[in-house]
């Protein structure tokens, strides 16, 4: 009687997860491979390979990748500055707290903040135009574009990177640097042969996480661009609202495609994180 009773303890959780996480997702996945009559078909997934939908995926992937890569680089530079750059201690703690806030400051308000700053009458736009005579618009910058969205996403991407990579940088032992140096290695050799290989799984894993994070971001994109930029989450949002694709099952395939992309990114993240944790045990 022991075993069934033990399982009873996690039953509420499993039922909840089944009903509100797994079944809804399965429903979409299955719907992606069904026609309206409920028969199996690959037509919906094939339907994704039309130029307009592929373009939406492509720009989504590019924005996510760009914001993930830039987020990784800038976040790494800031974390490295704090951990290894010999900055005073009072910089570190506020930076980490701020990162906690900023990584959660996504969605609609974030879009407003960037419109108020880099929009047509935003603080920086106006300042550059009136004080320095630089017209961002004539230089080709538009907040409602690839780079505008990327720049906005960085506001939560960089802090997320800082939060994840700071512990990894803390994990680099001083003795490794000293051991390398006493064995004759230069600072560059230490970084290329020891520090970066040790950090590599964390770096690449975090890149995958940031990618998935940006790829699934709906609210920021909608509040920023309305529907003027055709990225996958906006397309899916419009499809759920009003079947803009004219085929509900193509909508499921669109959602299924999102799961596949974020799923791949997160699998890489989890796999690489497990690897780096094994080393740093």
């Amino acid at each position, binding site marked *: 009687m022991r075993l069934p009773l*033990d399982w009873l303890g996690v039953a509420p959780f499993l039922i909840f997860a089944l009903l509100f996480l797994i079944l809804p997702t399965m429903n979409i996945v299955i719907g992606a491979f069904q026609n309206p009559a409920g028969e199996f078909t690959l037509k919906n997934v094939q339907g994704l390979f039309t130029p307009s939908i592929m373009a939406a995926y492509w720009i989504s992937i590019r924005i996510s990748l760009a914001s993930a890569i830039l987020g990784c680089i800038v976040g790494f530079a800031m974390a490295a500055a704090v951990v290894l750059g010999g900055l005073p201690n009072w910089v570190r703690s506020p930076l980490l707290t701020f990162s906690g806030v900023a990584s959660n400051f996504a969605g*609609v308000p974030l879009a407003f903040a960037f419109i108020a700053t880099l929009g047509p009458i935003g603080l920086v736009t106006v300042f550059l135009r009136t004080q320095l005579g630089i017209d961002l618009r004539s230089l080709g910058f538009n907040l409602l574009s690839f780079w505008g969205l990327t720049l906005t996403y960085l506001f939560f991407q960089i802090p997320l990177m800082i939060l994840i990579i700071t512990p990894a940088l803390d994990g680099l032992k001083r003795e490794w640097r000293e051991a390398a140096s006493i064995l004759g290695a230069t600072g560059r050799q230490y970084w290329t042969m020891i520090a970066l290989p040790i950090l590599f799984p964390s770096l690449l894993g975090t890149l995958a996480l940031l990618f998935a994070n940006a790829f699934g971001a709906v609210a920021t994109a*909608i509040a920023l661009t309305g529907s003027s930029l055709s990225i996958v989450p906006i397309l899916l949002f419009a499809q759920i609202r009003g079947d803009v694709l004219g085929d509900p099952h193509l909508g499921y395939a669109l959602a299924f495609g999102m799961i596949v992309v974020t799923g791949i990114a997160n699998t890489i993240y989890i796999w690489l994180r497990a690897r780096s944790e094994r080393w740093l045990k």
Partner: protein
Amino acid sequence: MRKFWAWAAVIFGMLYFILPLLGMTEFSLKMRRGVYSFDAYAKVLADPRFQETFAYSVGMAIATIIFGVVLIVPTAYWVRLRLPGLRPYIEFITLLPLVIPAIVIVFGYIRLYNTSSFLPLTGSATGTNILLMFGYATLALPYMYRAVDTGLRTIDVGTLTEAAQSLGAGWITILARIILPNVLVAVMSGAFLTFAIVIGEFTLAALLNRPAFGPYMQLLGANRAYEPAALAVIAFAITWGCMALIQVVSRFAPRAPAQLH
């Protein structure tokens, strides 16, 4: 030299973060022509739609937190106590909401719980509210579970349970009076994070058509100029407040071993 680059990186980064915050704050004060004023804030705060949606979202956040605690604390406790072999699988499930985009999950809800399904939650306002709360609980699951599980790691669950049982306590008593107080700090960290997530959440509420704060902000943003900036400042203040509260409660984190009464 290294120090110079370190300062350069941090200052350059902080400039990027401060400018949008400065931009939205400055913009929110510019409603009256020529002078800075709090007109945009007054207008927003006086808007009955603001009050309604904000109250609604606060209510949803509280309901989500309560539901999350009742669901997750016993589960995490039970897994640690009796089913440690199950831990990796439960942990995997709790991380799924990070993998599956929220928009996909809510899409599934709409399909699965429509008026003609076995559980027609979207058929009534109350039903949809409950569905939305479950959705929020799902979004908060990775953070809440992690927080509670970390809290449980610091106490000896098995010994505490056996000690309580030897004194005649039942399961409800053990959970409510021994386990929960011991992981309270962790639970509160998770709760504040949940609050921050729910208050500004847009996708779920918009697609389930509920009058929440997130969709209200988006609607206002599409139609007004200065009020959205004021809303952004308010939303940022709320997020900051939640994080500050997490920092405050975390100070109490390494608590003395539990006392049985």
